[in-house]
């Protein structure tokens, strides 16, 4: 059963709408949903002041599908802590989408803002466009609340510090990524099909990062272990060859960093060390 939300106007101020989740919509009438509280700047408003709400609402979260049409790139924290059901955004969406998400599915047609799926515990997020910085990251200053489960797939590019303090789960980026992918990563998997701006795996202690495109360089604290013909990630085989690095030795890390050999001719000197 589908609920449709449409923004009534373009937003200038940041809008915080933690209530847009299947969990808080389930079992409510359209009117009741319209009365849920959201913040626009420092003013508290009800959801139907900012959005038109229509459709049918399921009784349980897993029966709720929320569809948002229009530009909601100023709207933050959609899908916070959702546990089931589905959210589909036809347009760009703001910061903290799917923060602390436990289950269910989020699909974004456009681009997503920073902190996408931060502190995520389960479920699936798929973004057709680009994502900002800190995809699947931890809360500021917290070393224990990184992404701990679930899947994030980004078809466009992603920014810096993707998977910061990641502990479990999988992030796939089909485009390019910025710097510090998997910084402080403890476990989990990151796959980058495009290029990386470098410093991947900085201070990682475990987990796997695969970069299929080019990197400017590898950090000095990674030691080359082998050249592998392919890598297997969750049943998917990625054709290599890949250089396999281990690190970050500055953290006594056991993380694995796979870098494509074909796209990185400048790393050839590492072969002498294998």
């Amino acid at each position, binding site marked *: 059963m589908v609920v449709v939300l449409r923004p009534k106007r373009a937003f*200038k101020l940041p809008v*915080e709408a933690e209530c847009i989740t299947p969990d808080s919509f389930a079992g409510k009438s359209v009117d009741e949903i319209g009365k849920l509280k959201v913040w626009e700047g*420092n003013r508290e408003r009800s959801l139907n002041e900012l959005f038109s709400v229509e459709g049918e609402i399921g009784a349980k979260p897993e029966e709720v599908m929320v569809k948002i049409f229009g530009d909601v790139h100023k709207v*933050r924290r959609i899908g916070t802590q959702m546990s089931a059901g589905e959210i589909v955004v036809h347009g760009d969406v703001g910061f903290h989408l799917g923060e602390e998400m436990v289950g269910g599915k989020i699909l974004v047609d456009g681009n997503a803002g920073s902190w996408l799926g931060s502190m995520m515990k389960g479920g699936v997020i798929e973004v057709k466009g680009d994502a900002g910085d800190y995809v699947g990251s931890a809360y500021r200053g917290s*070393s224990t609340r990184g992404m701990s489960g679930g899947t994030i797939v980004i078809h466009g590019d992603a920014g810096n510090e993707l998977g910061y303090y990641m502990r479990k789960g999988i992030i796939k980026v089909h485009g390019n990524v910025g710097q*510090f992918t998997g910084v*402080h990563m403890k476990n989990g998997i990151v796959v980058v099909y495009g290029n990386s701006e470098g410093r991947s795996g900085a201070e990682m202690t475990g987990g796997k990062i695969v970069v299929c495109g080019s990197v400017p*360089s590898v950090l*000095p604290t990674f030691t080359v272990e082998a050249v592998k013909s392919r890598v297997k990630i969750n049943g998917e085989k990625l054709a290599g060859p890949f250089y396999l690095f281990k690190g970050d030795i500055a953290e006594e890390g056991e993380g694995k960093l796979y870098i494509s050999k074909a796209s990185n001719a400048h790393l050839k000197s590492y072969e002498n060390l294998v």
Partner: protein
Amino acid sequence: MPIISNVTCPVCGSLCDDIEILVENNKVVKVKNACGLGESKFLNYNGHRLRKPLIRKNGELVEASIKEAIRRSAEILADAAYPILYGWSNTSCEAIRVGLELAEEIGGVIDNTSTVCHGPSVLSIQDVGYSTCTLGQIRHRADLVIYWGSNPWSAHPRHIERYTAFTQGRFQASIWYRYLAHLSAYRARRRLLRALKLSSVREAPTIEAEAGLPPTLFRKERKMIVVDVRRTRTADIADYFLQVEPNKDYEVLEALRALIRDEEIDMDTVAGVPVETLEELADVMIGCKFGVLFFGVGLTMSMGKLRNIDTAICMVRDLNRYTKFIIMPMRGHFNVTGSNVVSTWQTGYPYAVDFSHGYPRYNPGETSVVDILARGESDASLIVASDPVAHFPKAAVENLVRNPVIVIDPEPTPTTLMADVVFPSSFVGIETEGTAYRMDHVPLPLKKIVEPPSGCLSDMEILQRILAEVRKIKRETAEVA
């Protein structure tokens, strides 16, 4: 003629508190002990200043009464749905405290200048913690001083003289005369080479970088190392200058960390520095008795930002397995540390605090003022003792001046020219007393040495009056409702 002694200098984060000032007819006539920066502030502060409140009417700034200006500001702030309150590093802790109260009252975002200087340091300290001490301890005990991405000779002129290389500690000898000899020899050599270059057709020989570390780094007395991307004045007097390629600090720090842990590195050079040199440097760091790493904006604002500090702190943590090592940011404005401290004790967060939901929230990048302005989300601003129009990126400035701007500042700046309400305030530490925090988190009193011109209130008084007026407006609207 009263000589006022033990005056604290309100210019840089070193906050020298040994300044002596001679005052005649409510005018500073002589300054002793201060460096050039401090002295010129004490002597010249009064030359070019604002004296009357201004309000923009029909597009022009016109003089107004203080009462009118307070009312106008309170109306702007009470009306705003996402106001920002920015600046704070050049005022007293007392004023900052009132500013935080005002931010809470109007549901605004309050941020200080660390957002554009040492914000990354704060973020990484929150990630990994850090070990530090006071400057006094460094002066008396440190036998190895490293300045990384920082040029105290120009930015904190008395830092070296009071706390590190040029001063003799109670428990740590310093052969400071060597530094002076070093400096004059270096300058003479530079002059000679320049003369040679000008007088001969042939290219003069350049000064070759030494391959290994100089033997002076292994002596007992205090040693000083400078790491930077270019040779600064501070580098000229150092025992050893390590030049790294721009934006490669992170790699160097990581490599040093691995070497400190006795790991091997697969590369021959890191950021243009041979690994052997780094190995020796790691040994010097491990071998010292009490080391200190001062880092500046060269590290916090080069590529990697907070991660540079993150790994620098981790390096210091690793070093503490072998010896005593501490790390300290070289804070710029005299009370930028204070603005972090006051904000932390009032709200739990050091900067970029968002009160829009009525309680403090914090997420730099989301709630930091530069980013809010760049996204064009705010609808009014209050700027205290700072000049964002001159220092922020263009897009942020455009969004700032598109909305009402209130400025409290003793001096005219590009920001006051673009403002809607301007309050002339008195100079903290010269005309008003207060408290400021030195870069090592030691609070020091700021003195009042002369009377302010009539009509110039202190930052704190202006803020208190705006706050009272905002509360009055809120009561009025509540009664009407």
